[in-house]
């Protein structure tokens, strides 16, 4: 299915956001944000509470309509047709799971919602990827917070999304869970998926990032491409603190 053939040129970009602005009442939560991400890129988005990171993420996923501006995903404008929504995976600190259903049932439901032909096998593969297949038949309400988060990540990745939006995905994960998530995200990047990762933890964000942005008061105030050899977390943390403390004063 080919959608939105009149879409503006995306020069092969996975995500093209232009002039995004979102107003809640009189307050601009996001203001004049434009960004382009190629397939295989991971944008780590940092910023203090209330900076507009989650609002921006929701607009990039088509869950929230921008007051102004547009988002194109692989050339298709969001919020778009069903096929466009199929390209997106959401991970948040909310697990988005049904507590009364088992881990397996939750992931199968997600796979079926995304029209996966072999939903059962896809679900088992996703649970295995997150190292939680041994708890597949356990109701989610009986799992620890960390295991619930791993099931939630399996739910988000079960349909092999092209754009994964992650809002504080490491919340509640233990070391094994965090490693499994990082490995799953690295695998996604290697097959050309695009990631947008919102987190307060600079180390985790910078480990995967191909570029890092700092957001304050609804705007991107600084964007850095990953230098050869990767970001130096300590240096970046210092930079982040100096920017956010200037704002606090």
């Amino acid at each position, binding site marked *: 299915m080919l959608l939105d053939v009149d*879409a503006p040129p995306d020069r092969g970009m996975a995500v093209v956001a232009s002039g995004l602005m979102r107003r809640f009442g009189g307050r601009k939560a996001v203001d004049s944000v434009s960004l382009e991400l190629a397939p295989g890129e991971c944008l780590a988005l940092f910023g203090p509470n209330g900076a507009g990171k989650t609002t921006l993420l929701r607009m990039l996923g088509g869950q929230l*309509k921008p007051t102004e501006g547009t988002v194109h995903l692989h050339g298709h404008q969001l919020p778009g047709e069903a096929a466009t929504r199929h390209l997106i995976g959401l991970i948040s600190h909310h697990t988005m799971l049904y507590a009364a259903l088992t881990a397996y049932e939750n992931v199968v439901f*997600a796979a*079926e919602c995304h029209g996966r032909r072999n939903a059962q096998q896809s679900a088992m593969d996703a649970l295995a990827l997150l190292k939680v297949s041994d708890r597949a038949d356990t109701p989610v309400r009986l799992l620890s917070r960390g295991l619930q988060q791993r099931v939630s990540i399996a739910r988000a990745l079960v349909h092999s999304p092209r754009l994964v939006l992650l809002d504080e995905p490491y919340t509640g994960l233990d070391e094994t869970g965090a490693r499994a998530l990082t490995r799953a995200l690295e695998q996604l990047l290697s097959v050309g998926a695009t990631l947008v990762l919102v987190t307060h933890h600079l180390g985790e964000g910078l480990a995967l990032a191909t570029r890092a942005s700092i957001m304050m008061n609804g705007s991107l105030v600084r964007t850095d491409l990953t230098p050869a050899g990767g970001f130096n977390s300590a240096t970046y943390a210092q930079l982040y603190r100096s920017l956010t403390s200037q704002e606090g004063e």
Partner: protein
Amino acid sequence: MSPPRVVELSYTPPGFVRDALRVARKDLLIEFRTRSAFIAAAVFAVLSTAIFRFTWEQGRVSPLDLAPGVLWVIFTFSGILGLHRSFGVELADRALDAMMASPMSRESIFAGKALANLAFVCCVQALALPAVGLFFNLPAGQFWWGIAGVSLLAAIGLVAVGTLFAAITSNTRLAELLLPMLALPFFIPVVIPAAQVTSLLMNGRPFAETVDWIKLLAAFDIVFVAASTVAFPFTLEE
């Protein structure tokens, strides 16, 4: 600059009916596992019947005159318990966000939710009908089939408009209070003809006398189902 590129999307949607049935199956499975709404509705139905029975002054009012009103009061209020639960399970950990971000159409999500609610209301009705019959010592007879039929017909309208208002109120702090306040006025056009048909059938009147009320009920069903399906996607837009 490389040429413009629009990636071809290979996704084929499963279809409206399959999506709706999947959502309904999921909701019913959750209710079957937890039974929280059904037990509350069942207890409400039986207790209300008992209260009506023991406040009923026998000899002054015939049970055949009182029972239709009792039945529809119970159906209306016990149904609301299930309707509220319908979106409560979605919001507990924002599962609705994942469902809304999936390729399923909003209309199929509404249809699935409404189907599950219809099954719930029918189960409560199946319990309340014999309870009212027993408590009010109503005679057995063929008319019960007619009452079952009109209950199902009315349940379609109640569930359609109730599911819509459950979605509207789900994100509010006072959802439990707002849902009945908003939904009950819209239940009236369904409940009045349904109660009239029930009364006529219980009093042994010929079926022909009920036809106009049934037509009115069917008309409201069609209007409510169509309007709610069209309006539902807007209730979840942000």
